């Protein structure tokens, strides 16, 4: 049983994203337990990819910084092995299908499971192609997270029916990044998921302020925040642990 179930068992969940290795892996190693202590219920760890087609500039730049600083999949695994001695916070990987495929799917999942990874979020692996990773994930007890988008419409029930862990509801069209307004009918998206399957829903893309988080949490079981956190990492560099912890604490408080 993955730890993802626990994420949504204590009220609304706050899911925090960071790019591993930005600005370096030592900082990421400190950030994970710090964000957990600050109230993050699940931490999404981005494995940087050279060509992240679903990301806006903020996370694109973070991926570039991390790769330039020498982050590799192996070094990220090594870092997580050390992190796991300090915290049992549920962890998900967010990456693109190519780094997993080229590493070797079996080999990747074996190491991921050994580091206590609970879930995988892979934005360029839609329902039609999920077999690429699904059996290896299932064999290791890792939830392969399904995403639904504002354009999914009649696809939602099909996707939700086979979903594991939680459903990642993409709030807006376009790529990741801070938005001043979210115009999608989130309540309807969530209702369509719940009609197909009783599974937690978390909303991501565009959320940055406590007010937005509170509104979105009203529609769903959790909120996911990425670019807003990565921006703080960009601003403070190796000194980002304090400011990010403070931000996470504020966001978690807003949805409680």
């Amino acid at each position, binding site marked *: 049983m993955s730890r993802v179930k626990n994420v949504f068992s204590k009220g609304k969940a706050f899911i925090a994203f960071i790019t591993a290795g930005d600005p370096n892996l030592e900082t990421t190693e400190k950030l994970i337990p710090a964000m957990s202590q600050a109230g993050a219920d699940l931490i999404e760890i981005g494995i940087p990819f050279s*060509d992240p*087609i679903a990301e806006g500039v903020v996370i694109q730049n973070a991926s570039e910084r991390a790769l330039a600083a020498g982050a590799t999949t192996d070094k990220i695994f090594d870092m997580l092995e050390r992190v796991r001695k300090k915290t049992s916070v549920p962890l998900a990987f967010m990456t693109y299908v*190519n780094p997993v495929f080229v590493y070797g799917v079996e080999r990747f999942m074996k190491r991921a499971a050994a580091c206590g990874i609970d879930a995988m979020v892979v934005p360029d692996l839609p329902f039609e192609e999920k077999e690429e990773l699904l059996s290896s994930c299932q064999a290791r007890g890792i939830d392969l997270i399904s995403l639904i988008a504002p*354009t999914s419409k009649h696809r939602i029930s099909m996707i939700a029916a086979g979903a594991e862990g939680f459903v990642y509801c993409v709030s807006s*069209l376009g790529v990741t990044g801070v938005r001043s307004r979210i115009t999608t009918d989130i309540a309807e998206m969530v209702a369509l998921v719940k009609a197909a399957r009783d599974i937690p829903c978390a909303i991501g893309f565009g959320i940055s302020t406590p007010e937005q988080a509170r509104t979105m949490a009203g529609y769903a079981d959790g909120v996911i925040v990425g670019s807003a956190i990565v921006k703080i990492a960009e601003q403070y560099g190796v000194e980002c642990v304090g400011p990010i912890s403070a931000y996470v604490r504020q966001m978690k408080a807003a949805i409680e």
Partner: protein
Amino acid sequence: MKKGRFGNYGGQYIPETLMNAVLELEEAYEYYRKDEHFQLELDELMKNYAGRPSILYYAQKMTRDLGGAKIYLKREDLNHTGSHKINNVLGQALLAKKMGKTRVIAETGAGQHGVATATAAALMDLECEIFMGREDTQRQALNVFRMELLGAKVNVVESGTQTLKDAVNETMREWTSRMDDTYYVLGSVMGPHPYPTIVRDFQKMIGKEIKEQLQAVEHRLPDAVIACVGGGSNAIGAFYEFIDDPTVQLIGCEAAGLGVDNPKNAATLANGSVGIFHGMKSYFCQDEFGQIAPVYSISAGLDYPGIGPEHAMLADTGRAQYVPVTDLEAVEAFEYLSRTEGIIPAIESAHAVAYACRLAPKMAGDKIIVINISGRGDKDVAAIARYRGVKIDE
């Protein structure tokens, strides 16, 4: 075979946000592919706007000079806009129009696909935005102005390596944000299903015409068909008709840049491995962790770290061969064809000419080689001058 697959390759590895757009495209294409009116309209455009069929020219001086196989040139460079790209673009723009889209977006490397898309958009009253890497806008400055002249907006891509790969990334990102009224005119036989099939179908007349035209003068099939390969659209267009003719050798020429042993190359099949990127499973230039490699070629149109999935399959089965050609070999072939036949080929197509120059002398005089001259070289003249250290006032 699974839908949208070429053996193990192909597929639809794209964000969920785009899935319905791609499914809508697939459905529309399946319908219009069989629609007589659509085909008639397209044939009319090909004939009276693009100038098809393009001629098959017997390169007598080159044949004599190389002293081996007879060489024919398929003159895609004579099409309207100067390359094979117009074939695919007219098909897709017409499809976009039928689907009720009012805006087209496209990536471009050398600028040929961008120019062709801007042209079709002007003709069909579609709003048009082109994405082009900063480095390519500098190498192909004239094409940027051509696109603007045709009424398109050119977006300069600053991310990553600022070349074709990044232009594709940025066009996909743009499509994710707006698909209701927007059609993505992909420029090569790559990307998610159904693009590799759509683009191949709109390019396959190249091989069909070669077959008919050669039959009329030589009463036989060619022994080899040679084309350059970036994503691979002119090559698949030239090859497709001959796939079931086992005596016809199919040869794709990849850009080897400074050489296959030098990191500055774009020879995907020589140096790449299987991966999943830009919506498809295929071969890519990448590292052991699946990070896409920054590739290089003098030719902006071949400067791409992947290859279309149908080529990946043809390479695996051995039905087609893929060979690396360096910058220097391509430049020499560019100059050679200009001097020998009075035809200035695109630097992309010059890669195919270079390999033909190697192959022809080894073949008997009764053998026939067809080289697909995918585009004309006017756009490259300034770059070749720079390569040779000649200062010209552009």
